[in-house]
């Protein structure tokens, strides 16, 4: 768990440098509240506190949830998110190792359908801002919902690249034109493309450290690249390029840090490939043809439901046996 946090740190630093202190405020609020909820649930469930509270699992959940949320939010959203993640998705299902759904993603999905307005307003990259907010001003906004004078909320937030793409395509705008909007950088969202690239490095480091295996990230990213590549080749006017899909939204974060959550992912090598592939396909489908700009969270939750079946049919061949587990 600790290694997973270390792998996230460089990405978070870049995030703060490019988008300001907002994300850090979220992480602090979510982490603190997650630890409090974890403590309360451990006490209620009469579990050894010292052993479980600092096992790192609650913190990782809180950080992943925060990274899924927009950086500028009222304080109660990350706190409510932690509540759903830790209390509902984790402990009500039996605690660490027993949860059916990925806690961070389950909680994010609940927040997304409950508070769609708050969750769709993302911070504008600092380079596009005339007057960036400092740490205190962000805290003031978070707790008292007030901004410095002469600054409106609309001036500091905008839709994400994927969201913008989606809205404009539905209006019939050509992708070439859409790409000229300031929220787009070299290949994907301004700023976000760098954050994602650094998360990618962190993810590769996790594979190198053998904390995760290569199967799920490779399968998921490859399937996103494949299906978006095919669509891009068929009609480049309404389908964005594979590279934009890979470096936008939660593709990278999802592939390396979220879909690889061992508790909810498949455990066999072949199962992991199928699992990653299915998440990639579903993510693209939701982005391209579904009701939300990004689909990683829903894809992870839905494909997670197939894991028992996947594990059953993809068990390795036992030494000396003629068939696989599932066939017998």
């Amino acid at each position: 768990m600790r290694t997973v946090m270390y792998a996230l740190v460089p990405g978070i630093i870049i995030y703060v440098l490019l988008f300001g202190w907002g994300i850090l405020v979220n992480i602090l609020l979510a982490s603190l509240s997650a630890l409090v909820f974890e403590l309360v649930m451990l006490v209620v469930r009469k579990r050894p506190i010292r052993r479980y509270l600092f096992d790192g699992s609650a913190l990782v959940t809180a950080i992943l949830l925060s990274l899924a949320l927009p950086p500028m939010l009222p304080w109660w959203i990350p706190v409510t998110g932690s509540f759903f993640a830790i209390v509902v998705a984790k402990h009500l299902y039996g605690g660490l190792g027993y949860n059916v759904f990925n806690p961070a993603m389950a909680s994010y999905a609940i927040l997304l359908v409950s508070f769609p307005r708050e969750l769709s307003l993302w911070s504008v990259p600092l380079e596009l801002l005339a007057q960036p907010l400092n740490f205190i001003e962000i805290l003031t906004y978070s707790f008292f919902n007030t901004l410095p004078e002469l600054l409106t909320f609309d001036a500091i937030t905008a839709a994400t690249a994927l969201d913008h793409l989606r809205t404009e395509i539905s209006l019939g705008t050509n992708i070439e034109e859409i790409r000229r909007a300031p929220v787009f950088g070299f290949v994907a969202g301004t700023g976000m493309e760098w954050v994602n690239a650094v998360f990618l490095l962190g993810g590769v480091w996790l594979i190198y450290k053998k904390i995760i295996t290569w199967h799920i990230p490779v399968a998921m990213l490859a399937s996103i690249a494949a299906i978006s590549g095919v669509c891009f080749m068929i009609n480049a006017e309404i389908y964005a390029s594979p590279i934009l899909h890979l470096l936008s939204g939660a593709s990278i974060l999802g592939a390396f840090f979220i879909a690889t959550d061992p508790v909810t992912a498949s455990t066999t090598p072949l199962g992991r490939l199928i699992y990653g592939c299915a998440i990639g396909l579903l993510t693209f489908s939701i982005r391209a043809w579904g009701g939300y700009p990004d689909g990683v969270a829903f894809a992870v939750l839905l494909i997670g439901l197939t894991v028992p079946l996947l594990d059953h049919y993809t068990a390795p061949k036992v030494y000396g046996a003629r068939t696989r587990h599932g066939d017998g």
Partner: protein
Amino acid sequence: MKKLWRFRGGVKLPGFKTLSNSASIRQSLIPGVVTIPLRQHIGETAEPVVKVGDHVYKGQLIATSGNFISAPVHASTSGSVIAIDKHTVPHKSGIAEVCVVIETDGADQWHPDIEPCTHPNNLSADELRTRIREAGIVGLGGAVFPSAAKLKPTRPIDTLVINGVECEPYITCDDVLMRSRPEDIIRGILLLRRLVDPAECIIAVEDNKPEAIKALNDAIKKLKIAGVGSVNTIHVVAIPTVYPAGSEKQLIKVLTGKEVPQQGLPYEVGIVCLNVGTTAATYDAIYDGKPLVSRLVSITGPQIKHPANYNVLLGTPVAHLLEDAGVRHVDDTKLIMGGPMMGHDLPHAQVPVVKATNCILAEKAAPLENIASMPCIRCGACATACPIGLLPQQLYWHSRGKDFDKLEHYNLPDCIECGCCAVVCPSHIPLVHYFRYAKTEKAAHELKLKLADQARLRTQEREARLERVKKEQEERKARRKAARLKKKAATANQHNADGAESAAKVST
């Protein structure tokens, strides 16, 4: 260079081999009393052929069995039998078994009938097999399967594999044996070759034992120069050091690429596999006529002052060996028979050394909080490490739930209990302990079912018997009643007849 295969899974472990393999072999002193269990092998317990009070010589037969899967037992030193009763034996169940207890006389005198065989090559295959069987030789790698039973394969054998892998940490008795008696091992193999007639013989040694490999190769060269042509079919093969490469199934995979069928034996794929210790014991039995009465035991571990390999008489109490080797901090020492991975805890130090004892490991007893484990997070590291291809995380759930059908479905019987899963578990769950426990629970459960079945049959039989008895009684009653009635009727008729007669008399 021979082509080698890889078995799936496995782990790299620190060896700790230099603790015990650098010292020379020591002869353990004769203890005052040896306790020799009558079952030191897989199969039927041998029946004692000596009585309390008998004098026995070293190497004298003290128990035997007519069963094919069994092995005779011999006195390991001279002395007198003082008891034949149950003692705790070093078995993972901590069970007590019948033992012959011999008070030693210190003379260590061999039985006068034991003499070297001058022309072992003139012995027929059957004679060889009989001598191996009568010498009480069993697999000395730890499984203690009667060797003679392995040496009568029912189908042609391609490869005779001699296992000198010794993959468990700490244990070095095979390593030291290969270094000190390479020529005897090769001569032993030449004898075994005649029994199974393989196309080739492979001595497999892990590449972390270069001295042993060199010693064996030198011995082969020497015999070749001496004109023993048949050594040409014997090859020493260095295999990569990955635990558990010494496990029979994994070794066969590495050397031949073949897999022994589930619940099957190696001969089914044309292979016979024996340990180097067994091979040396075969040499002793045929060339010197000496039965298996002693073996090399590694006494090692962080708690031992003078770790080394000891030549130990079977039946010697472990405590006696520890006195020789010296133990630090007796109070917090945990004694293990075998290695740290597959060995089992000894209940106390009074248990005797048996044919299966390859190592006595003295570790520091771990404080309880260090072994507290976290919940399973299904990371699958255990499944990656499992050399059999099992899913330990699934077996873990079902072991906890004692769901025997599911355990069968997930192939629990195929688990070789190597412990790789427990070593790699990031939550420090003692997985292999759960599986061992589940296996014994399953056996107990099946026994209970069997007993319940027997009880049900007995009850049914009893009911049927009672029914039958009742029926018979009734029939008898009815018969008696009928007989009575008949008699009555007969007497009545008689009376009537008499009456009629008298009436007739009267009327006349």
